């Protein structure tokens, strides 16, 4: 009797879950690609966890809160690690519509991925597109910040150069005038006639009177 029951159960199982069955989905895992050395082996315990996650996802759907782990059927597990699964209703006679399963998986994709340390690429549900995460959008794009820094430096440098050029030019303009002032001052102090300063009161003690020409220059040259 018991054997008959077991046989019946597996027969029904095979009927509901086989490759390309109605409402069945293929799942593909790439554990070694994702985890490398830390990869775990896919065994029946992992399958149990998978069935639990699917049942958990289905329970979030309204009207399906009574889904049990036993309602999730797995079949055709390969070495690739790929398999097919279906979710049956409580009576175990027919499978739940694909649309419901799809939406349930999509809502909880993140939880399922993280249960297995995988992501959308390494845990693939064929025919269930995943909602891709939006790219991390900074409030201000990075390039504008760098641009602002560079541009400010350039503008400040230009302003400094222009200002220093103006100052240089102003100093150059004042320069020649300054020299003329000094010459006027000199003129006030010493009057020069014939190349000899007119300063008769010589401090050398009156021995030499510079107001007179010396002997050699008395005669003008030819």
């Amino acid at each position, binding site marked *: 009797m018991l054997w008959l029951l077991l046989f019946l159960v597996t027969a029904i199982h095979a009927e509901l879950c086989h490759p390309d069955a109605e409402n069945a989905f293929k799942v*593909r895992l*790439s*554990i*070694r*690609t994702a985890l490398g050395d830390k990869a775990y082996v896919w065994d029946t315990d992992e399958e149990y966890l998978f069935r639990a996650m699917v049942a958990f996802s289905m329970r979030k759907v309204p009207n399906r809160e009574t889904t049990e782990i036993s309602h999730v059927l797995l079949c055709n597990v*390969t*070495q*690739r*690690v*790929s398999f097919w699964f279906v979710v049956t209703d409580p009576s175990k006679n027919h499978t739940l519509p694909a649309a419901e399963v799809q939406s349930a998986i999509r809502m909880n994709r993140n939880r399922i991925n993280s249960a297995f340390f995988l992501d959308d690429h390494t845990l693939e549900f064929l025919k269930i*597109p*995943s*909602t*891709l995460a*939006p*790219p991390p959008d900074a409030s201000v794009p*990075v*390039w504008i910040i*760098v*641009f602002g820094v*560079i*541009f400010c430096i*350039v*503008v400040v*440098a*230009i302003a400094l*150069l*222009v200002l220093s*050029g*103006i100052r240089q*030019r102003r100093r150059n303009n004042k320069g020649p005038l300054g020299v003329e002032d000094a010459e006027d001052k000199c003129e006030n102090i010493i009057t020069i006639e014939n190349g000899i300063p007119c300063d008769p009161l010589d401090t050398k003690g009156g021995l030499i009177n510079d107001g007179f020409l010396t002997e050699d220059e008395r005669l003008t040259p030819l």
Partner: protein
Amino acid sequence: MAQASGMDPLVDMEDERPKWDNKLQYLLSCIGFAVGLGNIWRFPYLCQTYGGGAFLIPYFIALVFEGIPLFYIELAIGQRLRRGSIGVWRTISPYLGGLGLGCFSVSFLISLYYNTVLLWVLWFFLNSFQYPLPWSTCPLDLNRTGFVQECQSSGTVSYFWYRQTLNITPDINNTGTIQWKLFLCLVACWATVYLCIIRGIESTGKAIYFTALFPYVVLTIFLVRGLTLPGATEGLTYLFTPNMKFLQNPRVWLDAATQIFFSLSLAFGGHIAFASYNPPRNNCEKDAVTIALVNSMTSVYASITIFSIMGFKATNDYWRCLDRNILSLTNEFDFPELSISRDEYPEVLMYLNATQADRLAQLPLKTCHLEDFLDKSASGPGLAFIVFTEAVLHMPGASVWSVLFFGMLFTLGLSSMFGNMESVITPLFDMGILPRSIPKEGMTGMVCLVCFLSAICFTLQSGSYWLEIFDSFAASLNLIIFAFLEVVGVIYVYGMKRFCDDIEWMTGRRPSLYWQVTWKVVSPMLLFSIFLSYIILLSQTPPSYKAWNPQYEHFPSREEKLYPGWVQVTCILLSFLPSLWVPSVALAHLLYQHRQRWKDTHPESGLKPQESRSC
């Protein structure tokens, strides 16, 4: 008499002309002007296309017989006459005054589009300061279930370049709007150029230390990094292995001669301007040979770096092609993960072909050959902005390499821009267009402002099509005509004997037979044959362009379209208008001389008493 009108006698006098702080500044300025973006992205492409190492033979022959002689003439004449290009040619002969004006206008046109390339480089530079790099992923589509369709077909890097940077229109008639991001970068670029040339060679002389030497530092870093990447040696051996049969193709010789010509930036007037600030007694022969050799060595050095990185990229693409195939096989036949290595793939494929051929046929397997990936060559902006940016994505520490690479390209282009702007500004100063009261800073500012306003058209959505037009038509023919006239003008109009005497005074050595033969015969002949070949090539193929059209059936290949009529007219105008300065100025001077002679022979007709010439 008119010829000797502006020429100063050969004396060691000190005049008011600005001068270089030291010889190194002058050498670096000339090297920076000559070494530009073309050394990085044009020479490696030519090497690759024309049989690898074999291309070096026509290249060096062209350098010896065309490049160095023409370069020496420019430096010598600038140093002797101590004027910018307009002044020099007007001094040699008033009939040749148009040559200077032509060089001036070509330099103006070239600075417009050259700085636009710099603004693209700046844009990529600014975007490299983030991880992951923005061209590594596609943006998501509206319902966030996948990527944008255009990006999926074309690839992330091409999408980033054509759509997110240029936002290119599918047709040149469709100009689109100004892209504000590019406009901002244009402002920054011209502000940077203004900052560096604000006081002429006083300011560029300081900036050139950095902008001329930094690229060599970065090239060396990239060389070391590139040689340690996997696949670099395959790239180098494949791309440098000489294939002598290419030398029979005349196109190779034409391209070698053209490459040398444009690589040394001849006939711009920039080298004349730089040399005019030299002390009168300076060994320009040694300078010419040094700078030309440094330029060529830089090209070869850069191509080693580029080839090793291209080899890495090709190997990477090849591995990814194999990995994609292996994944398809694994998924279809449910083999255990990672069970097929790249080396085992061919055997597994054969085995499956024998046993399960029908299932195998349905799989989208591509044939992967390393040579196919190595053969994919690119030149110009395509190399820098698409191929290299993709290669950088796969290097560890991608952001750093990207920042370094685009920083190097920016400084390379900037040092060439100094030469371009110098060839525009020095003639303006020498001609005394603006009154002396306006300071130098104001003059350079106005030039930069005019250039900036004119270059805004390149920030339109169709801007890159226009840039290709400028690149192909504005420079090539005009510069060849000007270079030919330069050689003829100096050797035949100024006089070979007088030129040799000047050089003997300046350098202490009379030019040897090699120089005299190349100047008199070889270089003009080479230039003339290049000019003819250009004309023949242009007339054979109707000018067309490759448009980026997402609606094209073979997208992501670019659609080949012919230029519309009005654009063709613009191309023709660009090719010839600058050269028309030469005949028009010659004609104007001829008419002026005629009028003067007529006035001299008819003194009684219409002359007032005070106009009679005093003896």
